[in-house]
């Protein structure tokens, strides 16, 4: 018995002794010099180490992600350190340590069928993320030659894994789109893949856009963005986007790298973008990369497809709004083309109704867009592309009457037109395995004109008299821009970007009023003396680093200059962001400073509205915003949840004490129009103030099998404050939207048929209701607003349903259709409200609202081949 106890005690002692030897002093998470860790390993006495101490000099610090307190954990951690290799012989308890051989490999990732480059492809190995492909599908990674393999993956595509020696420098990796494979159901359950939201916030591919519904059933970029948290769901007839309480002119919208100033069509029906033409959309509400600047609220970077390099593909669609056509294909082995066009046929349907009901006898309501892109590859990693865009919107309502009781003839013309024209030349080339250059040269032109005029001829005392009024406002804005960005992929310190940008702005806002009918040919008043020429220049740099497996940081700076109108402005704009992503969680934070040099004057004065773009001057400093954002995301593949908090502080924001005052101060033909002061300088009619917007954004997503659901909700506040009016007190900004909610529910019956319900809700926009009446100095009475934006229009909401289907025919073509209803319960959302004045009593009786989109059908048929 004693012997047995003795043996047990000895065994226990030996065991404890062994465990004591495999336990090390606790090491906290943090950064350590590699020779420190090697010394700790050596001091345990468990292994004999063989290495040259020189190989440990000048190596980057090793990041310990979590505390460790055992030898096994220490050895495992050291094996993950990419700069040394551990060859462990457990039998002899010997470790040979050698310096890793690192190589930099670059390549291109493209779609196997179309040859289209694939952005944001994840490149990774068994232990960590190595990098992502850029917008041109280019990636550059530094790997240990002793590593077995590298994998690439993009949601919706088949993952691929390569041995290191299989990846050739600047080679091309072709990924297969899972949609093209039979019997494949794409789910978010692949543990090796990126988790992706049903409605991604920022990296949006063409296939995501199909989830959006425009008013008439077409998929549309702006309709998609309005489903995101932080983006206003819009309001009746609203053009543009409002992001986190900002105005539409505060969004930087780029098409193949060149800025577009107005990207909406008639009354917010849809945007200028044709989804079939688009390869990729990047959308930023925060964490703005340093290469972007010049606007305060958001960046929408839209990239067109280069065109299918292997075969021609076409589509043609017709719907309630109009027709759309698309064709892309190869023009030789290394050249491709992408052509798209869209034309509305509103007038065919709307004009007869308007002319019958509103006494107009000549109406035009139309818009059109045309895109063309030519791309040529000198080598797989060197591409030159030429992009062209032309679009316009026209609203014309005119009437002529003769021999009415009160007059002998009457002519009334109302016209609004706007359009963009853009040319872009882009050259993208991999200069080496680690260096990528992107250069773009472009010209964009935005012009806007609105005209309201009438002429009455009448007889008085046998004399024919005439009374005329004509007012024309135009805005012409031309940008000539040049930008170059160099990306360097460092083996030790991540990705560096360095670039410059130069933009020449030419603005020509002007307004002409006349008591005679103006020459109809006058549509461009750029020759008048209201042309402003200015220059914008920026240098920017940033660095993105992957610290260990889970941590990513980005730091950047943008030095920005604006001048040319007897003024010079220079700004230092820092950018910083960090994120920690592990398992299914992601947390992050960012800070960005942005500025804006070109401002939009929106005058809703008498008659038609006018959009005039004007530059910063010595009296009107550029606007600034400081943006802070924190986020938390959780994504299991089936279920996703996200919450963001944001705070934006604005400085030098502009508001006009009297919009009509600005209007008149821009009148060109002063001799014909009376302006009230000797100084018609519009800059002195502007008030400069501050603003703030803050809030919380929530999103929920769930998908299982054939069912998917996505919801976003934003609770926010956006205010402005000016010393010059509203008694210096803060007031709700025009785009303040306390509650903004969007939800889509979709069910796929099978691969070919699906149904979707969309619901959108937003608090009504704030406006100033002058419902107080006071006695004036001359004993008359007049309305007086008690405070700015003291009222709200009724809330905006609608529920839509859309059924989609598709069917292939024997010739390989595919018919697809969508049919549904916009605004199922016929909610009469307000386009605007007005205070109704009884024409007989002159009393103000009540508010009335005007709505323009009641229940509407959605119908679209498309044929692709």
């Amino acid at each position, binding site marked *: 018995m004693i012997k047995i106890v003795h043996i047990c005690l000895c065994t226990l002692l030996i065991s404890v002794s062994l465990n004591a030897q495999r336990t090390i002093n606790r090491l906290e998470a943090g950064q350590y010099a590699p020779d420190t860790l090697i010394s700790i390993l050596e001091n345990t006495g468990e292994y004999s180490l063989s290495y040259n101490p020189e190989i440990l000099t000048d190596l980057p610090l090793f990041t310990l992600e979590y505390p460790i307190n055992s030898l096994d954990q220490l050895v495992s951690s050291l094996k993950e350190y990419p700069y040394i290799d551990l060859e462990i012989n457990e039998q002899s308890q010997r470790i040979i340590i050698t310096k890793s051989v690192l190589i930099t490999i670059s390549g291109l990732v493209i779609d196997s069928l179309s040859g289209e480059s694939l952005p944001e492809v994840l490149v990774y190995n068994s232990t960590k993320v190595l990098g992502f492909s850029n917008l041109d599908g280019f990636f550059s990674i530094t790997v240990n030659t002793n590593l077995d393999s590298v994998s690439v993956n993009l949601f919706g595509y088949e993952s691929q894994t390569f041995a290191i020696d299989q990846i050739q420098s600047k080679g091309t990796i072709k990924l297969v789109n899972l949609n093209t494979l039979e019997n494949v159901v794409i789910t978010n359950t692949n543990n090796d893949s990126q988790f992706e939201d049903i409605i991604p916030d920022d990296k949006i591919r063409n296939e995501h856009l199909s989830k959006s519904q425009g008013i008439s059933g077409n998929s549309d970029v702006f309709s998609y963005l309005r489903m995101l948290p932080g983006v206003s769901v819009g309001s009746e007839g609203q053009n543009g986007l409002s992001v986190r309480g900002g105005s539409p002119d505060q969004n930087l919208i780029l098409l193949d790298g060149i800025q577009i100033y107005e990207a909406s069509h008639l009354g917010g029906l849809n945007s200028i973008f044709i989804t079939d033409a688009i390869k990729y959309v990047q959308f930023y509400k925060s964490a703005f990369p340093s290469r972007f600047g010049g606007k305060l609220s958001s960046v929408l970077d839209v990239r067109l497809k280069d065109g299918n390099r292997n075969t021609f593909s076409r589509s043609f669609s017709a719907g309630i709004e109009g027709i759309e056509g698309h064709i892309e294909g190869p023009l030789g082995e290394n050249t491709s083309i992408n052509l798209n066009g869209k034309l509305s046929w509103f007038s065919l349907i709307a004009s007869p109704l308007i002319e019958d009901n509103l006494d107009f006898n000549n109406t035009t309501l139309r818009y059109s867009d045309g895109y063309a892109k030519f791309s040529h590859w000198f080598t797989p990693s060197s591409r030159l592309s030429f992009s062209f865009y032309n679009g316009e919107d026209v609203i014309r309502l005119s009437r002529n009457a003769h021999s009415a009781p009160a007059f002998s003839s009457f002519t009334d013309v109302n016209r609004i037109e706007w359009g963009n024209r853009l040319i872009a030349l882009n050259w993208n080339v991999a200069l080496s395995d680690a260096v990528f250059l992107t250069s773009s040269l472009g010209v964009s032109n935005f012009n806007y004109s609105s005209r309201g005029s009438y002429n009455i001829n009448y007889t008085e005392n046998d004399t024919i008299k005439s009374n005329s009024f004509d007012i024309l406002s135009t805005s012409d804005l031309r940008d000539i821009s040049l930008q170059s960005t160099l990306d360097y992929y460092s083996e030790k310190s991540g990705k560096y970007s360095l670039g410059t940008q130069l933009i020449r702005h030419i603005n020509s806002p002007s307004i002409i009023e006349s008591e005679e009918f103006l020459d109809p040919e006058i549509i461009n008043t750029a020759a008048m003396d209201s042309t402003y020429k200015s220059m914008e220049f920026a240098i920017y740099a940033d660095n993105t680093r992957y610290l260990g497996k889970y941590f990513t940081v980005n730091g950047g700076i943008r030095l920005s200059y604006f001048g040319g109108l007897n003024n010079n402005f220079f700004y230092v704009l820092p950018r910083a962001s960090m994120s920690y992503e592990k398992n299914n969680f992601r947390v992050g934070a960012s800070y960005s400073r942005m500025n804006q040099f070109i401002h939009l004057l929106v005058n809703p004065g008498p008659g038609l509205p006018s959009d005039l773009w004007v530059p910063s001057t010595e009296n009107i400093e550029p606007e600034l915003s400081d943006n802070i954002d924190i986020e938390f995301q959780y994504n299991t593949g089936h279920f996703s949840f996200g919450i963001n908090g944001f705070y934006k502080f604005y400085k030098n924001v502009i508001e006009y004490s009297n919009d*009509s005052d600005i209007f008149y101060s821009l009148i060109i033909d002063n001799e014909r129009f*009376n302006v009230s002061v*000797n100084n018609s300088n519009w800059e002195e009619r502007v008030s400069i103030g501050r603003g703030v917007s803050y809030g919380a954004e929530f999103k929920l997503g769930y998908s299982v099998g054939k069912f998917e659901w996505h919801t976003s909700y934003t609770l926010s506040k956006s205010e402005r404050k000016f010393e010059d009016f509203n008694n210096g007190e803060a007031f709700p900004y025009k785009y303040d939207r306390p509650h903004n909610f969007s939800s889509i529910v979709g069910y796929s019956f099978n691969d070919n048929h699906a149904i979707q319900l969309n619901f959108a809700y937003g608090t009504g926009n704030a406006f100033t*209701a002058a419902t107080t009446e006071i006695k*004036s*100095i001359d004993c008359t009475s007049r309305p007086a607003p008690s405070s700015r934006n003291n009222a709200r229009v009724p809330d905006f909401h609608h529920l839509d349903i859309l059924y989609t289907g598709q069917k292939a025919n024997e010739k390989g073509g595919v018919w697809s259709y969508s049919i549904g209803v916009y605004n199922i319960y016929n909610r009469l959302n307000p386009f605007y409200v007005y205070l109704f004045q009884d024409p007989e009593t002159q009393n*103000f009786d009540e508010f*009335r609202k005007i709505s323009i989109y009641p229940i*509407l059908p959605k119908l679209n048929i498309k044929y692709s081949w």
Partner: protein
Amino acid sequence: MLRLTIFILSLTMFLSCEEDVTIKIEDNDRQIVINSIISTDSIWNVNLTYSKSIFSDQEFEYIQAASVKVTNLTNDQSFFLKSIGNGDYQRALMPNEGHSYELEINTDEGESARAVTYVPSVLKVEVMRSNSIDENGNNTIEIDIEIEDNPVEENFYVWEIVENKIVEEEIVTEPLNIDFTLPTEFEEGQTELKSLNSLLFISDDKFNGKKYSTKLTLGNDVINNGEGGNDNASSSETPRFNLRIMAVSKDLYEYLRTYELYKQTDIAITSINQPVNVYSNIENGLGIFGGYNLKEFPIE
């Protein structure tokens, strides 16, 4: 069936609709409205009323029993105005040129309002008129004006030409809505003038402390206006036209300018446009408290 479908589809489209709606206004409390313009040639007068809802059919409510205190900020003297009814408060004193004044209102119901203004210094202006003939052979009147601007103050000027008419044996003065036809010679001390309705607004930012000279021309259409005819009060006692030149306080200048803008634009009250914001310098209230100095010159 297809035709019926298309017809029904068409009917559901583009049928804009108008209906009544209730709008919640965040604040619509009544406020004190002060109307008081002071000058060296008239006694103190302040009119007090309450604002009312635009939907109300009631007349404006006068503030009958309020404490109206005036403090001369230049010499620190103060006095009270007396109510004479209909919301008017008076005191048989005249403001002094170059002095600043503070007006404090306190009502029986605990409401209060305050404003500050000043009376500009007396104008140094010379006016000479002469008859002339225009290129069409018609009679015109040319008026040469020279203002010597006070370099110490920031000055604002409002000009007006009024016509005196005899209506039912009484002389009625009406402002003229005319286009001031002006030469635009951009030499130092001269600047382009513009008018709005009957008032012409000028600030001294381009000729501060200097002499400013210009010329106005009354065209033949004004002189021989058919509406005037034999009712024009052109006599040795009452001239037919008077040129009024006022030096006004900055507050009054902004008020008159924005008020003229309001009268000219006459925009409907909608959620799309911002209503014209007529300037007010009343703290915790609405209206205007301003000062001016007037010189009047007979023209014909």
